[in-house]
């Protein structure tokens, strides 16, 4: 029998933008920074990214197939995004089995135990990274010298710049960072290699209207403002705004991790508050905490407040005062 005509309530049309398309855009936006990190760190970084993405996808497939016994969800590419972000959040040269454990925690624990895409409270990639950070502190803070395909004269090895603040003093550390740091390798996790390329990707996402810029801008503004205040009061103790914006995971976190749909507020004003919270916490950890860097913790902490923020912030209904 011939297929009969379809009947549905309106609308009868659909925008071409699917979840898969959105995730693909994120992957595209990450490409420049990914390529840069591979160029700077070489084959080992490529291996980390491949293992990370492959294990994320594999774990999600396995969980849906064998544990949940539901149709596979890997087609939406969200596991690929998590895989890339996880890989970029690890130091280059980390043993590959640790990468796999990170993927297991990211997808298996942080994402699938909550019910998969859309249900998780915490950003999977960051959860994976933090788990590795507390489980393998040595490996997670061993920053290898870049020995990639392009020579990098001003690379720091050993501790990151942030890690050196307490050793060399805030004013000296500040002096090492200027606007040109935007374009160069600053040392640290693989993905932090080029702030500029991360910003390019972020701009792409904003222009394609995949994400709204408010969360990211709010984080940047908060970090800059807090750094300006403390630095203004005591430049010898506290590093300045530029230093804090361009070092560590601020750019990567603010552009790609804090803007994750599922774990960030829906409302733009809620997003501003969320961004402020992240900026505030990260600066408190940097200035007063025992870790040199706190972006992951800041995002994870603010992830918890998202349901509350979503309850508090609603857009204005037409015709209501």
């Amino acid at each position: 029998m011939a297929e009969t005509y379809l009947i549905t309530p309106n609308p009868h049309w659909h925008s071409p933008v699917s979840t898969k398309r959105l995730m693909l855009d994120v992957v595209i936006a990450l490409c420049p920074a990914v390529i840069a990190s591979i160029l700077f760190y070489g084959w080992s970084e490529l291996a980390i990214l491949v293992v990370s993405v492959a294990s994320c996808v594999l774990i999600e497939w396995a969980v849906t197939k064998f544990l949940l016994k539901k149709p596979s969800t890997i087609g939406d590419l969200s596991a690929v995004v998590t895989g890339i972000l996880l890989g970029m959040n690890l130091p280059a040269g980390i043993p590959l089995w640790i990468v796999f454990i990170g993927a297991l925690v990211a997808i298996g624990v942080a994402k699938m135990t909550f019910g998969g895409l859309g249900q998780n409270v915490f950003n999977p990639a960051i959860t994976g990274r933090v788990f590795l950070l507390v489980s393998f502190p040595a490996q997670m803070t061993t920053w290898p010298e870049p020995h990639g395909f392009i020579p990098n004269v001003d690379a720091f090895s050993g501790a990151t710049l942030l890690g050196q603040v307490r050793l060399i003093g805030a004013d000296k550390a500040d002096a090492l960072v200027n606007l040109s740091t935007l374009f160069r390798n600053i040392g640290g996790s693989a993905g932090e290699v080029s702030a500029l390329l991360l910003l390019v990707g972020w701009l792409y996402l904003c222009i394609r209207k995949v994400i709204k810029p408010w969360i990211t801008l709010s984080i940047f503004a908060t970090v800059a403002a807090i750094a300006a205040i403390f630095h203004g009061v005591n430049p010898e103790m506290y590093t300045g705004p530029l230093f804090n914006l361009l070092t560590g995971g601020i750019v990567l976190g603010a552009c790609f991790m804090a803007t994750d749909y599922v774990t960030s507020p829906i409302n733009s004003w809620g997003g501003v508050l969320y961004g402020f919270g992240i900026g505030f916490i990260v600066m408190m950890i940097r200035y007063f905490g025992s870790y040199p860097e706190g972006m992951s913790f800041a995002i994870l902490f603010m992830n918890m407040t998202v349901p509350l923020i979503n309850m508090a912030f609603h857009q204005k209904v037409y015709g209501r005062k």
Partner: protein
Amino acid sequence: MTSTLIWTIVILSCLGLLLALLLYLVAQKFKVEEDPRIDEIEAVLPGANCGGCGRAGCRDFASSAVAAPNLDNHFCPVGGNAVMEKVAAILGYEVVKKAPQVAVLRCNGTCAARPKVNTYDGVKSCRAEASLYGGETLCTFGCLGQGDCVAACSFGALSMDPETGLPVIDEEKCTACGSCVKACPKGLIELRNQGPRGMRMVVVCRNQDKGPAAKKACANACIGCGLCFKTCQHEAITLENNLAYIDSGKCKLCRECEAVCPTGAIHGINFPKPLDKDAVKERIAARKKASAEEGAK
């Protein structure tokens, strides 16, 4: 070292005691005096919170039963007479007995009997589909097959049969709570008396179209021909809007209506033996002959 240990234990113990005291005081302050019988009744209720009694849940039923002057308006369909006897005993009221009931589907518009004329592609919900239009077939009275009743059942007594596209009621599990009755936008599920050993007669159709239209829409439809109405000796069958209905209170389970129905819209359920149509028809013919002779005399 030891002093630290001791201090820790002492301080923690004190803290614990203090908080316990606080909790106790708060609990005392906010304590609500409740009729203890509410708890007793709740304990004997099934605890499914299905809402079949018309209240928000078992506790609500219990408190409203305690407040009521008698049990006329309170009946737990899930627990049935056994539970209601216990409730009546607690309250010292007279028990109001009800015949045990079961949910019965009144549509037999299987995929085979009812050709599809369009394909519904909206959200999987009977209620949404019904608010849009009559459904995928020409029968605008029949089951839509999206399974709102299955979702509404808290006892797992309903399931969709992929073969027929209709829900199947598991009589063992059905508690006659009525959730499915409320969920069906077409009003196809009815609570009926279980009948002796579960036996009952049902018109498995709600199509109110005239005969030819009903027939065209569904091979199994009641076409309102009235044969059953004319045959029934017990005045159990009524015919309204081209649709027959069997009153379970009057039906004597003689199965004559089932035998004469031309479309098989009348089902005898849970009878031990399959219906011998010819034998029943002969019986009817013989009776007619006899009464005709009587009339002639």
